């Protein structure tokens, strides 16, 4: 036993140091440092502000999306939910005469409904989330068009538009980051420190194992989709105010960026694996890299290739490493087995 103890504790140390989320942050820091040295203008307060505001929508939706993927499902309808929210908000503000606070609250309700509808189809009817949310991806975006047509509403209160872009003092950090931190903290605590979060991991790894420890599978999934809907709606409201313009196409294509960032952040598409710090790292890594490369005048086309390459690499690399490790282990076991052919070995 003592032999196993030493090897495992060494393994543990290396695992801490090469854990996926830690690696993501090493890369992120490296990117930041290299950019500061080599990219003109990168070392600037403006960077902090622009960068954070640019990644904010992805960062926000990535939180509930991480939980959804950890629990073994996926939600492709997030960007459409944001679009529908934006459209609803625009029409309400233009036509209803309600004050902006009420309008925003009602708009968030859109997210609750969208999420609940996804959740209902997936948990009550037992449909695959991939197919359901491809359907609602089209449906919600379509409803956004139905609600607002191809009009735009741009008459939102100027102070509010300015507020979402305002910075904390002269740090360059956007005020909205405080809000984002609250959302991140909420989902980090929910996933890592609550009974519900523990249940999600079990659920993602094995729905059966989760059922056996009393996780209410349908219930948990339903609320995950509602949470995703609500946060997508928040992003819809944020985009509307940040763009000072409500339209049906706000947030188009966001779903793929979010999923790419979440997977890059170490969440397994099979479910059961991943954590919030890793996801935050993944979002910031893609955002920073894109930002720095743009500033370095790398062509936009190269940036798409980098994003896609990172995504493929982040999922292929662990497989390749695992394969290599398995080869080494098999060789070792092989030697051991040949070494001890005497009778009386028990099956460990």
């Amino acid at each position: 036993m003592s032999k196993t103890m030493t090897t495992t504790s060494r393994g543990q140390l290396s695992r801490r140091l090469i854990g996926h989320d830690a690696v993501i942050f090493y890369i992120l820091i490296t990117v930041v440092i290299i950019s500061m040295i080599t990219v003109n203008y990168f070392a600037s307060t403006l960077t902090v502000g622009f960068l954070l505001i640019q990644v904010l929508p992805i960062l926000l939706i990535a939180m509930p999306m991480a939980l959804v993927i950890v629990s073994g499902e996926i939600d492709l309808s997030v960007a459409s939910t944001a679009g529908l929210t934006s459209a609803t908000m625009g029409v309400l503000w233009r036509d209803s005469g309600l004050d902006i606070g009420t309008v925003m609250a009602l708009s968030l309700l859109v997210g609750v409904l969208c999420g609940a509808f996804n959740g209902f189809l997936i948990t009550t009817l037992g449909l695959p989330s991939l197919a359901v949310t491809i359907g609602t991806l089209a449906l919600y975006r379509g409803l956004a068009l139905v609600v607002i047509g191809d009009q735009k509403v741009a008459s939102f209160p100027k102070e509010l538009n300015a507020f979402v872009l305002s910075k904390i003092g002269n740090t360059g950090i956007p005020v909205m980051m405080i809000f984002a931190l609250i959302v991140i903290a909420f989902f980090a605590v929910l996933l890592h420190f609550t009974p519900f979060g523990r249940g999600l991991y079990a659920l993602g790894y094995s729905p059966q194992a989760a059922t056996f420890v009393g996780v209410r599978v349908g219930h948990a999934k339903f609320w995950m989709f509602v949470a995703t809907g609500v946060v997508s709606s928040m992003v819809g409201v944020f985009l509307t105010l940040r763009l000072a313009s409500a339209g049906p196409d706000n947030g188009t294509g966001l779903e793929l960026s979010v999923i790419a960032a979440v997977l890059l952040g170490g969440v397994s598409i099979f479910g059961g694996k991943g954590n919030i710090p890793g996801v935050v790292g993944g979002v910031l890594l893609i955002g920073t890299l894109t930002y720095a490369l743009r500033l370095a005048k790398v062509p936009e086309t190269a940036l798409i290739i980098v994003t896609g390459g990172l995504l493929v690499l982040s999922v292929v690399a662990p497989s390749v490493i695992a394969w290599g490790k398995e080869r080494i282990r098999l060789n070792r076991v092989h030697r051991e087995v040949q070494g001890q052919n005497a009778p009386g070995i028990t099956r460990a």
Partner: protein
Amino acid sequence: MATAAETAPASHAARTPALSLRGASKTFGPVIALADGTIEILPGEIHALVGENGAGKSTLVKILAGVHSPDGGEFLVEGKPAHFRNVSESKAAGISVIYQEPTLFPDLTVAENIFIGRQPKGRAGLISRGEMRRRAAELFTTLGVPIDPDRIADGLSIADQQIIEIAKAISLDANVLVMDEPTAALSGVEVERLFTVARALREKGAGILFISHRFEEVFGLSDRITVMRDGRYIQVHNTAEVTVPAIVKEMVGRELGDLFPKQDAEIGDVVLKVDGLNSIGTFTGIDFEIRAGEIVALSGLVGAGRTEVARAVFGIDPYDSGSVSIGGAALKAHSPRDAIAAGIGFVPEDRRKQGLVLDLSVARNVTLTLRHSLARFGIISGRRERAAAEDWSQRLQVKTGSQELPVSTLSGGNQQKVVLAKWLATDPKLLIVDEPTRGIDVGTKAEVHRLISDLAGRGIAILMISSELPEVLGMADRVLVMHEGRITAELSRADATAERVMQAATGSREALHLDLTDEELSTELEAGK
């Protein structure tokens, strides 16, 4: 330890074996699944392979099938060395396998499931569905079962699925046909048909390897019997020259009393009361009670409905009528959460898929059932969590380098202890253990048995499901035997013998007199309809 060559009966010495495996070994990570796999199948013989669960039979079968390649040993087919890299190579060598669990394609038709990869071709090299259907129908006629070759496999009963597997294997015209517990889910008539077919194949010169737990089948069908235990070859016999007790002794290989140390415990009040539980198509009229400190074994063949009853009691699956109560209070149906709250723990049969979240750490797995009680204001305290995990791991002597290691790095026995720890931590009144020692080495097995016995001693009611007769006979205060969804016998510790349990489990009539007269039985059967 004797080798096959020295001790094999010499009756068929003149013929070249259709297949011969000597000293094959196979390991999976830390688990040695097969240490000495040795078997010889002659053309024109039916060869039975017996052994307890975990004796390595299925691993041996998978080596023959080309699913696993052995780490060591000698493997000859028709006298020539064979190294199968995959299933197709094994098939090409004339070996056809019926697995324990049917492996059908649910979306394909029955006929296609039989002929996939070698569908009959018609015009222009295209698959001829008519021909395929005709041949499938022919096979079913041979087997005497009326299955529609055109229906899709999804939704077929286990028995029908198994029949399709058999039809598939037969249609291959193999030199060697391996049947891994093909009869577990079949009824008497179907079994008889299968045997007729097997004998016909033998006449044609095929070698048949037959794995079964049912001794009357083994003795009724086979020419020779090979016994395995703990991953090793033990002995081969001519069937005519050996008796059931002798085989059982070789399979178990030890005195029952030593291994299954059930202590006497004070039997207390009724903890679990199951009343008239019915689930259409799965089980019928299930009534029993378990008292504090009592170990009740639920025995029977695979597919008899044992696990299904336990799952329904725990709330994993819904049931159609009846009731379950714990300590006199009725339990809500179909809610594991309520069952846990009421004090039931469940150690499931499939440790890797149902019992554990393999990628999570030991600590997380242990505290998974405690997640609500460890939380204050909804937030789990890391300190209390670690303390609880540490405490329970120590109490059960889980051997692990660190609480933070993924539970997948542990051996089977230690994994099972983690599952037990997780449930003991909830302080249960009733613990359901489903195949608690499956795939666990002998040493840890005894530890698990001692643990379960201890728990009963401390007043916990235990419902144990086990396919290992010695375990059932050694541990249980009472044995409930199930057959085809009903409880067919209730035996006290004193009454429970291997023969009686097996008879009740296989539905032989004389087993039933123990607690039912024929009249009572027929009334019961009527009521069930």
